[in-house]
């Protein structure tokens, strides 16, 4: 059953140079228990998409210019603050890239977990404490009952991210949005955190939307992948399909950037050029100036997202002929 449905979502920001769309016409959906990976470079609109769904962008300068978000059959766009607060936590919860700064330094971690539960459920103080200890246990914090009264500065980055996960899962959400959850962590800790997320998915059966620029993370976790470029979705497919035969030249480029131990590749290929700023996006296909396959028609119109095979869509005029 569809849990999250995003249709034509466009989020605009008021800037010094007028209004620009950070994301444009973003559509996708997510089934219960599914893990969707959203991949793209910094500035491609991944985080803005997540923050728009959560309604966490400051308004102004942000504004939903078009589109809808439905969650669990309920329309989220246009909900008032109070109704949205009830969704955040038990409905959708979120963890962030920076575990070092995502916890409030002046409250104990126990306090921060307990207040999350208390915001959504009526529980006695001792029950809250029990639940918080239970959650810390689940995310692998040793001697949880003792560490409950610790402050964030007494913990390492990996432990803080575990606390963030405990907090995010404390109300048993149906969807967890993980925005670059491992980017700021050591490689060994990254693997642990990803394993933890996968285990918890199996235990709680929640859906996960994992945002990353790391193809390795996608390969390890996601069921389905959404590739974003310059604020638009440019390709969507099951994870095996993306790695096996990507259709969009940008996705191919992304995959060629991943170093491989097994294949004999002379050197790593970098995609030429840089991601255009939102206010200076080229006409037509936004990737065309950087694309080795671009032809004249590419800069004439924005290519629509087309279904090329079952469950595989891409936004490229030449996808079929290049495949």
């Amino acid at each position, binding site marked *: 059953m569809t849990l999250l449905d995003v249709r034509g979502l466009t989020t605009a920001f008021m800037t010094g140079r007028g209004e620009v769309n950070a994301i444009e016409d973003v559509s996708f959906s997510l089934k219960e228990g599914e893990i969707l990976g959203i991949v793209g470079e910094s500035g491609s609109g991944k985080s803005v998409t997540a923050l728009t769904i959560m309604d*966490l962008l400051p308004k102004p300068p942000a504004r939903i210019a078009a589109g809808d978000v439905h969650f669990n059959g309920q329309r989220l766009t246009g909900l008032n603050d109070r109704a949205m*607060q009830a969704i*955040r936590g*038990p409905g959708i919860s*979120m963890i*962030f890239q920076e575990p070092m700064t995502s916890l409030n330094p002046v409250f104990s971690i126990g306090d921060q977990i307990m207040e999350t539960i208390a*915001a959504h459920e009526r529980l006695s103080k001792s029950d809250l404490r029990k639940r918080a200890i239970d959650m810390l246990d689940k995310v692998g914090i040793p001697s949880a009952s003792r560490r409950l009264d610790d*402050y964030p500065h007494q913990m390492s980055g990996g432990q803080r991210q575990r606390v963030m996960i405990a907090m*995010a899962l404390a109300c048993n959400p149906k969807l967890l949005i993980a925005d670059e959850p491992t980017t700021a962590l050591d490689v060994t800790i990254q693997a642990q955190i990803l394993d933890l997320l996968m285990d918890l998915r199996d235990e709680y059966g929640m859906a996960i939307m994992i945002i990353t620029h790391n193809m390795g993370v996608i390969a390890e976790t996601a069921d389905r992948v959404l590739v974003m470029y310059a604020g638009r979705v440019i390709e969507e497919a099951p994870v095996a399909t993306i790695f096996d035969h990507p259709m969009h030249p940008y996705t191919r480029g992304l995959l060629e950037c991943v170093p491989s131990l097994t294949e004999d590749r002379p050197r790593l290929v970098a995609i030429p050029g840089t991601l255009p700023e939102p206010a200076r996006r080229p006409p037509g296909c936004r990737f065309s100036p950087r694309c080795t396959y671009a032809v004249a028609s590419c800069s004439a119109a924005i290519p629509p997202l087309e279904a090329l095979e079952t469950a595989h869509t891409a936004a490229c005029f030449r996808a079929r002929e290049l495949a």
Partner: protein
Amino acid sequence: MIGVAFRRLLSAIPVLLIVSLISFGLMRLIPGDPAAAIAGVSATPAQIEQLRRDLGLDEPIYLQLIDYYRGLAQGDLGRSLLLGTGVFAATMERLPVTIGLSLYAMVFTLLIGIASGIIAALRQNTWIDQAAMMFAMIGISVPNFFLGLLMIILFAVHLGWLPSGGYVPFSDDPVGWLRSLAMPAFSLALLQAGLLARITRSSMLEVLRQDYIRTARAKGLSQRKVVLKHALSNALIPIVTVVGIIVSLLLSGAVVTEALFSIPGMGQLLTQAVLNRDYPMVQGGLLLVTTFLVMVNITVDVLYAVLDPRVRYE
């Protein structure tokens, strides 16, 4: 936390020593003779000389200083040359009046300053923000004696709501105390409130941008909780530091305000003492005021540790 308080108490000792030395030295550096001031204009030079000997002012300065410290070591601040009473007793009669006025002004300062700072930060760049900051600027710019005068004209002379001056002790009539000090406290507070509003606003803006505020909102907490718990508790840390400074500003501002509203506080006492070269009174009075300020600052440091666990565990 007790450790913090203890360490600060120890470091207060040199502060008090230095202050006592400065007040002793300054009084003797300024021209004027306490004996002449006490003896009056009709006294003969011989009478003045006699009085100087009686008061021990003919001794070398280092002997006077040793005497002064010997007294201090025994807890004796000496006798006022002018009033004839003990310096400690005279100060204890006046200091509570000034501290009461300052605390009253502090309440105004905190209420007006913090509330308007928070509101301005939450409504950044709207007309509410601009209005709040404009009032803060007016508060900072208008001298408090001038504001006091305007208030007397409006509330005492025209409207007759509040007394134009005088002092009712709290123990006699709490409501009368509140009424008699309302205008002095408000006029004293406005400058500090303006300062505090601006500091609160910038501190709140800084905190509201932090990642943990986004986390708090992502957890589904109410706006109230996000602002008053998560943002304010962090924003208060720099604010508390300023509060210590504000208390000392209020105490020094009280001198002028007391004169304007004829309130019998420390300001009056010390002004009189300085004008009459009442050495023991000035030295003892300043030392006691300093002691009070040092205690306020120790409280601020302890409060700092209460608010910020990172300080507590160092």
